């Protein structure tokens, strides 16, 4: 293992976070605060409780997941797409670094950034609503696994994308509907049976449900199934990455 290389890539990516502090940390905080004001306070005050939890508290785990997902995908994809776009990737590809190490460096940094922002959102939320965490260990596990999985997913998008349009199409067009329809703002029990079934095909449902269970012990699906699904997504991403570094797809061709 070339640990110096992993460290260098990781620290390089984290330094980028420092430079772009305003857009990478402050903007998700403002966005989330707006969600709390609009959904939690304005509309939420008319919705008394969902499954025994105040509406503002109910949406918090979903909001954290939503931010974590988008941040990890965008950090993971930009981190590798940008050097590909500017051409500086030549250096990493000609260095004595295995693809595994490149991935650990980039995905590790993207996941760390996502988690830092997740924690900041959690702290912000506690200003607006009551937060109770029933299973802190499980919460950390859900968040960390999600962060790693979706940073990998972002990394795959970054390698696949040939232009900025392709880079943005999944984070802009695919992720928001999935997160909005994945039970971030409601329990799927409120939906008609048909749409409940459809929701089970939405991967985000399992993430949000598992995360909400670790807070309030209420869940749309069994938390162990949620954990299993996250594990499955992780394995899928790992397999795609394995194929990418075996074939040199869009990197060494």
């Amino acid at each position, binding site marked *: 293992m*070339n*640990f*110096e*290389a992993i*460290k*260098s*890539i990781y620290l*390089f990516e984290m*330094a980028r976070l420092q*430079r772009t502090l305003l857009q990478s940390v402050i903007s998700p905080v403002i966005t989330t605060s707006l969600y709390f004001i609009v959904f939690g306070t304005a509309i939420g005050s008319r919705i008394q409780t969902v499954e025994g939890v105040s509406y503002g508290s109910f949406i918090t785990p979903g909001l954290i997941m939503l931010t974590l997902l988008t941040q990890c995908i965008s950090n993971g994809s930009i981190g590798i797409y940008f*050097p590909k776009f*500017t*051409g*500086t990737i*030549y*250096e*990493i*590809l*000609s*260095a*004595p*670094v*295995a693809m595994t190490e490149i991935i650990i460096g980039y995905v590790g940094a993207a996941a760390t950034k996502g988690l830092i922002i997740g924690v900041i959102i959690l702290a912000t939320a506690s200003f607006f609503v009551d937060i109770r965490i029933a299973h802190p260990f499980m919460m950390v596990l859900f968040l960390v696994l999600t962060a790693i999985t979706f940073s990998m997913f972002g990394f795959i998008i970054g390698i696949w994308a040939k232009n900025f349009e392709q880079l943005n199409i999944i984070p802009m067009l695919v992720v928001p509907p999935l997160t909005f329809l994945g039970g971030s703002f409601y329990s799927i029990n409120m939906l008609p049976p048909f749409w409940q079934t459809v929701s089970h095909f939405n991967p985000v449902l399992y993430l949000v449900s598992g995360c909400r269970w670790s807070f309030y012990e209420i869940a749309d699906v069994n938390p162990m199934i949620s954990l299993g699904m996250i594990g499955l997504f992780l394995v899928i991403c790992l397999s795609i990455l394995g194929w990418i570094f075996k074939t*040199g797809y869009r990197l*060494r*061709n």
Partner: protein
Amino acid sequence: MASVVSIDKLTKTYENGFQALKGVDLEIEEGEILALLGPNGAGKTTLISIICGLVNPSTGKVLVGGHDVVRDFRQTRSQIGLVPQELTTDMFETVWSTVNFSRGVYGKKPNPALVESILKELSLWSKKDSMLRELSGGMKRRVMIAKALAHEPKILFLDEPTAGVDVNLRREMWQLVEKLRASGVTIILTTHYIEEAEEIADRVGVINGGKLLLIEEKAALMKKLGRKQLRLELTEPLKALPESLSAYNLTLSDDGTALVHEYQGEEGQGTIASLLSTLAAENIHFRDLSTRQSSLEDIFVALVGEDA
């Protein structure tokens, strides 16, 4: 001398079907400066990219220091430094951080003293805290070299190093190349500027159409392929060549004021003396004489064709 890079029947066909290399064999010797000449699209950059690990070969084998570039990439790549053709830099990084990053990615422990000496050598020390986007093209080129040297490579690839570089920087770069060679670094450079190869290379390889057309000691190449020309400016114009001069490969200029004798490398030694004495015997006098040796450029053009 031992060969430090050995290339065996290397081919590369890109996904779009373009065959960039069509079976290249090449031994690069330790400590030499090898210049690879060739027109655009000849396969120079593909060849370098395969040796450095940027592009996967289609068939054939490349060994660096006895290790396979695909299987033992850690051993091979850690010995190689690459200065690519394009100026690609992280615009928002400082000179200091980008050069230290290069060292780290190559798995070397931080060594600020070494990085400092490299930056000083390349006259970059005063710019160490500048962001790369603030630097001129020439300065960026120096940064690229500093990055390639940060992990103390044994083999340095310079892909078109002096494209778009002013005369001063070019001269400084050649001094640096000489210095690196003196410290035992093997240097492979590709170039369009034939004078450059002529000036600093030990050996010259010519690539065209994905094939290595020749590889030869520069001096031997010049000797073997270089034509020489002796030009005599006559005091009185001649109407025709006298019979006694027909044995020499001579041409008379249109206005009859100059005689031009063409010969290959060494063969001229004996004939020139007898030519001159024959001229004296024929009472043909000349007021000036000049000789000219064909340059690598002429050799190159003759090899790859006029359209190169």
